[in-house]
């Protein structure tokens, strides 16, 4: 029972929310347009940093800071997209991965007055928290603190709005063009559409939604740290997307919730098995840190098996997945 409770907590927590939004952004890139963006962590990072540094160092209003974060994601998309969107899929993957890594290195080593290296940026949540409508007397609800609850309320409403928006968008002619780019770029080009510009728009839109994930994650943790935006962030978001089903509006949402739930459940199960007076797994075989490694080994295996046996994930349509290199 405790395990289920913990799993539920982790699956809908602010932390999971930032992954949900990042995965929704990836869904636009990979699921609908067929772009292999392996630098989603970079978009999440610039969103989070732009907002946090804007408030903490320059004391700009909260709304302006959010706009600054969105602007940062748009600029990053333009910088990344201009050289790479004409290249083949795996080149785009490598470049975006490299760009996200460069950003992480810069955040963790340079401009220490603003980015504070590995200590991270903090002290930017005052305005957001002052807007909290939940009564002061309520210190916690279920397993969540009052602050978490406020972040989650905003976050899940945001997820719902984004999903509705995307649902409408993908039914529109614009969405159809995106999907046809995924299926056959040349055919779309022959119809006189500017494929390059459509891809750029998709990259920007997905990147901005990734930046939303950065906002929610930063507000939830009340701090922004460079190492949380490493390549693993993107790979985990990809696993969630593929688990839920790419090219489905709710695919990444369901995938992310299931992913964190399952990860948390496996983790606490392993810890329980390895603790107590008469542990089922002897402690010499598995410490707490090692239990975490076992969890992520399972993640790797699941990603491999999904990709081999069920690339469409739980809810996807196999015909809708762009998996053949062009």
């Amino acid at each position, binding site marked *: 029972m405790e395990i289920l409770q913990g799993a539920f907590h982790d699956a809908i927590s602010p932390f999971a929310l930032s992954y949900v939004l990042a995965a929704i952004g990836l869904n636009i890139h990979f699921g609908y347009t067929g772009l*292999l963006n392996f630098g989603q962590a970079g978009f999440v990072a610039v969103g989070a940093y732009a907002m946090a540094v804007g408030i903490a160092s320059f004391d700009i209003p909260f709304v302006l800071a959010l706009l600054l974060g969105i602007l940062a994601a748009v600029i990053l998309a333009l910088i990344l997209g201009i*050289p*790479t969107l*004409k*290249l*083949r*899929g*795996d*080149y785009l*993957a*490598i*470049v975006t*991965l*490299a*760009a996200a*890594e*460069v950003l992480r*290195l*810069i955040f*963790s*080593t*340079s401009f220490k007055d603003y980015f504070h290296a590995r200590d991270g940026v903090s002290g930017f949540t005052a305005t957001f928290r002052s807007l909290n409508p939940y009564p002061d007397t309520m210190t916690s609800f279920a397993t969540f603190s009052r602050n978490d609850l406020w972040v989650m309320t905003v976050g899940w409403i945001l997820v719902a709005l984004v999903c509705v928006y995307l649902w409408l968008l993908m039914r529109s002619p614009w969405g159809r063009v995106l999907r046809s780019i995924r299926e056959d770029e040349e055919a779309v080009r022959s119809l006189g559409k500017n494929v390059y510009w459509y891809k750029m728009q998709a990259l920007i839109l997905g990147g901005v939604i990734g930046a939303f994930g950065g906002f929610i994650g930063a507000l939830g943790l009340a701090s922004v740290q460079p190492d949380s935006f490493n*390549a*693993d962030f993107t*790979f985990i978001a*990809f*696993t969630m997307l*593929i688990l839920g089903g790419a090219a489905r509006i709710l695919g990444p949402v369901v995938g992310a919730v299931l992913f964190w739930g399952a990860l948390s459940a496996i983790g606490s199960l392993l810890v329980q098995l390895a603790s107590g007076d008469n542990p089922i797994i002897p402690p*010499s*075989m598995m*410490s707490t*840190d*090692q239990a975490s*490694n*076992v969890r*992520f*080994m399972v*993640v*790797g*295996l*699941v*990603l*491999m*098996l999904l*990709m*081999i*046996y069920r*690339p469409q994930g739980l809810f996807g349509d196999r015909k809708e997945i*762009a*998996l*053949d*290199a*062009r």
Partner: protein
Amino acid sequence: MQPPSDHRRPRRRRVAPAIAVVVGLLLGLVAWAGVPASAAAPAEGDITFTGTMRNAGEPVPGVEITVTTPDGEEFTGTSDDSGRIQIQVPRVDGEYTVAIDEDTLPDDVGLREGQEAEEKVTPSSLGSVPITFMIGESTRQVQTKWDRVPQLLYQGLLFGIIMAMAALGLSMIFGTTGLTNFSHGELVTFGALIAFLFNSTFGWPFAAAAVVAVVLGGLFGWAQDAGLWRPLRRRGTGLIATMIVSIGLMFFLRNLFQYFTEGRTQNYREYVTPSGYDFLGVTVTTRDLVMAGVSVIAITVVTLALSRTRLGRATRAVADNPALASSTGINVNRVISLVWIVGTALASLAGVFLGFSLGVTFQMGQLVLLLLFAAVTVGGLGSVWGALVGALIIGVLIEMSTLVIPSDLKNAGALMLLIIILLVRPQGLLGRKERVG
């Protein structure tokens, strides 16, 4: 380029047992490797931190080292006339801090470049922990930028030539199968870990351990191809899907390695800071020369074999056009299997050598993977010479860039070059245009 595929009906049932075999083999191998460590009963009571302070082979007496227990208790020891130092501390669960007092070092001796004066250690179940501060001739003397150029060039070339082996493997695998292998970095880690296992845990001489690492690396490559990649090719899995499978494999392997190393960074048993001698303003050590020599020989043998032998020609034929190669009687799967064996063996050897400079840790693969990608992309994906040239350029660039940017950011320079190259010449320096698509 098309992935080679046998034109048969996809066979589902082949994959599952194959994956099971690979996973089983891996678990078995590493579990067997892990036995000696976990079998030793956890020592009660004390832990001894031991080490020998040497500069250029000469013992350095009077160096003070302080060990702080997780409880905050401090224990200080001083090295004796033979440079030996022993500090006994009580065993407490958690992280110990080992700090060297740099003021007690002789004036002309300092910590080696890149060494922190403080290290965090989590002791294993064994009763003794090695102290691994690397000291050598003081590098803190004031130098102008241009004085550092020869040394940086030398370091860059050394790093580049070692990386070239791993890049060559990555490029060959891409050339013949079209797979962008994200798990290639973990093959580098694999080599270092196996060498460490045989060298430090089993006490074999380093050279023998290195040979074992290369052989097991090749075996690992063969098993991967036979158990995972070949069945995927047979099913006609797309290249992007296969690439994502390799990401899953990377995740799996890295966490497996972390599971068995428990996240520690370790050094080989015969690890000593070699004494260098001065050559045209460059500190050259015998170990560096041996590593560079072996790397050059390995690369030469592989490239010669590719250009001169029948099998090498067959490999290039498969890279050019698998279907045509297959119809001229070349056994495509055998060639690809061989490429995997050679590719992973090269990666393992690179890992064995990189273990000296980076330390043996599960993170090695993560550190080098992007640099390898940068190397092969800059040189030209799928081109043998491109991989070599690219690796050397990246190696030199990384070291040279420390002249103008902080050394924390030196890898970022290499990645920026990757992005710029793709902007102006997407096929890479030596690649062919058709590959860009």
